[in-house]
């Protein structure tokens, strides 16, 4: 069972309370409206994508005659029907909505077909005949790397002199790790509903983490200005990064049909197509050479990443940057050369996924530590301890940022104690000495994670707050709700400012017409950015209301306090609602657009140096596993987690994020296997072949706590810290525990690919170097 700790050291009325998700009551009652649940307007058409059935080639002809002859099928549109630009690249350019000539991956959209209902549209899509000239596909990163096929130039971070460090090292170890990708498997598949308006206006309901990007791309595709498109999103049925750039494809295709037909259009991907046609977490191969002294202290390392970008850049550039800037994880690396290659393959273009390259960096770092320990026959935690960032070791990262508010030692020490490490280590070693078939493993690992988008310009946000004359509050901001509890956290912030009950704050759908030019809700920054923007908006209104209150009470503003839905001064009080009405009567504005830009950050994208992160979060996990050495099956038996959330805005929501992220990370590392055949067809396109963790796959004993007294030293919203992504990487403890279990059979280092499926565990067990 969980041990849930309260963390708040300052008593607040709303912030810091474990209030339920904003839509909890609607969710349990089946009343929360997702896009597919919206009442359809009369005349609504249903669209389906026509996608390529080969991985690489040239389109010779497209024949939609049979499809269009079906009763109830209305029109078929391809690249040549796009009135604006056939380009939906999120950062670069040259990423078409519809393939024009060249096919670069299987499942690439070629066109969109519209019919009376979704089943008919899907059937019609299959009836469109496309002839291709087939070309040989490149399907793996090593081949792409050999042929120097990249979607972007390499990124390289250099710190100190690695060659010299490796020359002087007592030991140099080489390694290689195959890191699997991951499908997001949000339960709600990609969907958009578009409604054409007057002039050329387009209202777009999109299940997206990035309404602004959808707005810009829809406008771009239609050849219109951004001000003609309004994008709304009330909630998503999960996002995890998969609806950051990918939602644009769906929304733009639907909008194109609406544009041509002047009818409302719904486009929902069925699961198999969603998994085929939208990007995933980048699988990568990492290779390293690390030099250490006799005690295992790192002197220098050379690390190279081969990332599967897929056919286009999408977000691969910043994903690689984050992998590079997390290759240190918790460890001081005085000399480093870290290189990332964005390998071009004829597979779907990979994209954002919770952690955004960080997980690939951190697992590489931890695999290196694990290898050093195995080769030198040291306890892995001792190797960790001597390499931790510390004042007497070094506290500057390879990219030049000072590690501040370093919690590595307190977090790991508290966790090792609460997880009863010493006793369990002894017990497990004893168990393994006498049980040849079922082996157990135990591992601890820390995570230091940098918070902020690497690109400074993305670190800004807006919010819109109105107070009405009855004292009720309207809240809008650029963040989107995908289940992570952002809307409630920001509402808590606003309620705290006004000292009113949180249910007086109306949470409203994200809308580009209300708050413009927003960043994606991503990089764990949702509550940091939007919470601060809403705080600024609410505080500005409050300060104007204070002036009105001071006049009313005939006193100084400093005497006036807001508390319990009331405003108090000189022993008198009036309800907040009355002050709102008074403010209106005094012609004082009760509306404000708040804005926030993260301070202190800067970044040189050429040298990969600077201060990309406003602050770091720290966490650690201990995992215990058992493996069956005959079948390769494994189980995680227990997990203990301690995570630094600063002063949590909402501990219940944060604990839920940690638990969910950890289990999602376990899925990435143990059971979620993406498998392409030789023709480049992904064969794992549904829950029958792609296994995400189920209720029985999670650790039955799962102890999650938040670090106490961990107020953020940076001025974040109420001194909280971000939580969305960091705990996903704590699942690397499960991978390391599996290595520990396998290693009880081995006397030196060995490889274990991820995901550590039974096959991969068996192959590690049977590999060379058995004891």
């Amino acid at each position, binding site marked *: 069972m*969980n041990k849930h700790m309260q963390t708040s050291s300052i008593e607040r009325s709303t912030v810091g309370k*474990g209030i*339920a*998700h904003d*839509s*909890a*009551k*609607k*969710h*349990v*009652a*089946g*009343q*929360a*409206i*997702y896009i*597919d*649940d919206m*009442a359809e307007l009369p005349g609504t058409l249903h669209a389906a994508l026509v996608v390529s059935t080969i991985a690489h080639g040239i389109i010779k002809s497209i024949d939609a005659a049979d499809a269009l002859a079906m009763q109830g099928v209305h029109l078929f549109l391809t690249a040549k029907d796009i009135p604006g630009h056939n380009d939906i690249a999120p950062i670069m350019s040259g990423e078409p909505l519809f393939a024009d000539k060249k096919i670069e991956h299987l499942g690439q959209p070629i066109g969109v077909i519209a019919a009376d209902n979704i089943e008919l549209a899907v059937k019609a899509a299959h009836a469109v005949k496309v002839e291709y000239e087939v070309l040989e596909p490149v399907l793996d990163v090593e081949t792409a790397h050999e042929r120097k096929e990249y979607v972007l130039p390499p990124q390289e971070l250099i710190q100190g002199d690695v060659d010299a460090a490796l020359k002087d090292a007592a030991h140099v170890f080489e390694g290689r790790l195959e890191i699997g990708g991951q499908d*997001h*498997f*949000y*339960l*709600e*598949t990609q969907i958009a509903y578009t409604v054409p308006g007057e002039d050329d206006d387009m209202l777009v309901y999109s299940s997206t983490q990035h309404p602004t990007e959808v707005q810009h791309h829809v406008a771009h595709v239609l050849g219109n200005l951004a001000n003609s498109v309004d994008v709304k999103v009330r*909630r*998503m*049925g*999960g*996002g*995890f990064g998969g609806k950051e750039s990918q939602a644009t494809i769906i929304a733009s295709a639907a909008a194109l049909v609406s544009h041509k037909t002047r009818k409302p259009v719904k486009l929902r991907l*069925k*699961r*198999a197509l969603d998994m085929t046609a939208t990007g995933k977490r980048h699988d990568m191969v990492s290779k390293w050479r690390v030099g250490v002294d006799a005690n295992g202290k790192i002197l220098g390392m050379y690390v190279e990443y081969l990332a599967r970008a897929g056919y286009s850049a999408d977000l691969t550039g910043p994903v690689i940057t984050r992998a590079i800037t997390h290759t240190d994880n918790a460890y001081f690396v005085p000399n480093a050369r870290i290189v990332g290659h964005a390998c071009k393959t004829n597979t779907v273009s990979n994209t954002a996924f919770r952690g955004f390259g960080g997980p690939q960096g951190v697992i590489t770092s931890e695999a290196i530590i694990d290898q050093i320990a195995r080769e030198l026959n040291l306890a892995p935690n001792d190797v960790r301890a001597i390499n931790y960032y510390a004042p007497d070791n070094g506290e500057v990262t390879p990219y030049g940022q000072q590690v501040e508010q370093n919690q590595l030692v307190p977090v790991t020490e508290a966790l090792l104690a609460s997880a009863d490490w010493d006793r369990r280590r002894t017990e497990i070693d004893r168990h393994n000495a006498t049980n040849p078939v079922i082996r157990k493993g135990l591992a601890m690992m820390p995570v230091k994670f940098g918070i902020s988008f690497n690109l400074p310009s993305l670190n800004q946000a807006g919010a819109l707050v109105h107070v009405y004359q009855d004292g009720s509050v309207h809240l809008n901001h650029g963040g989107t709700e*995908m*289940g*992570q*509890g952002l809307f409630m956290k920001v509402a808590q912030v606003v309620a705290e400012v006004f000292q009113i009950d949180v249910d007086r704050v109306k949470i409203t759908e994200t809308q580009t017409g209300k708050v413009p030019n927003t960043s994606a809700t991503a990089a764990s920054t949702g509550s940091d950015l939007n919470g601060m923007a809403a705080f600024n908006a609410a505080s500005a209104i409050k300060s104007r209301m204070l002036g009105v209150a001071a006049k009313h009470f005939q006193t100084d503003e400093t005497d006036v306090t807001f508390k319990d839905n009331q405003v108090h001064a000189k022993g008198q009080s009036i309800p907040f609602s009355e002050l709102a009405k008074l403010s209106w009567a005094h012609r004082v504005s009760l509306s404000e657009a708040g804005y926030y830009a993260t301070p202190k950050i800067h970044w040189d994208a050429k040298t990969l140096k600077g201060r990309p992160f406003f602050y770091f979060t720290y966490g650690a996990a201990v995992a215990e596993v058992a493996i069956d050495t005959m079948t390769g099956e494994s189980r995680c038996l227990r997990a203990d987690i301690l995570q630094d959330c600063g002063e949590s805005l909402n501990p*219940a*929501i944060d*604990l*839920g994020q940690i*638990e*969910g*992220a*950890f*289990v*999602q990370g376990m899925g990435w590392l143990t059971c979620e296997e993406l498998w392409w055949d030789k023709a480049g067809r992904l064969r794992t396109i*549904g*829950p*029958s072949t792609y296994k*995400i*963790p*189920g*209720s*029985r796959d*999670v650790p*039955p004993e*799962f102890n999650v706590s938040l670090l106490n007294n961990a107020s953020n030293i940076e001025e974040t919203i109420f001194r909280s810290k971000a939580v969305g992504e960091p705990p996903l990487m704590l699942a690397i403890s499960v991978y390391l525990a599996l290595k520990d279990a396998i290693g009880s059979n081995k006397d030196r280092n060995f490889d274990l690919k991820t995901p550590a499926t039974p096959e991969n565990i068996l192959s590690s067990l049977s590999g060379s170097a058995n004891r």
Partner: protein
Amino acid sequence: MAKVSLTVNGKNVEKDVEDRTLLVQFLREDVNLTGAHIGCDTSQCGACVVHVDGKAVKSCTMLAAQASGCEVTTIEGLSGGGDLHPVQAAFREHHGLQCGFCTPGMIMAATDIIKRHGTKLDEATVRAELEGNICRCTGYHNIVKAILDAASKMDGAAKVAAE
């Protein structure tokens, strides 16, 4: 076309639908009850679970025509017009949801599990029987807690009612 006549949340519904109409489509499109969600199209995720004659059924595995003559209860009808059913209340109280997409199916499956096991329901059984319901957000921990808590409260309520 097939004539389908059934009760949904206590109300009679009669419609002519295409033979191949799935129960989940029928509920969502013809009866406008959108609480049952479509998460996978292949009968594995459990987001579409409803009760048919009191038993939990994935409504994407059943034709509307097959449900003709049956009593169907959806998440919208679970509380029987009251505020929240104890299982719904427990999911809310224990934070057994994040994005909420799996929640209606989870709750309908959970009510059936509790009904079948009554007082004997333990954590291992909940985890085993929930295997047909996928949640991508929560890691299941709070879902399991909510179900066990609801089971114990419902058992308590049943005892009080029996006395």
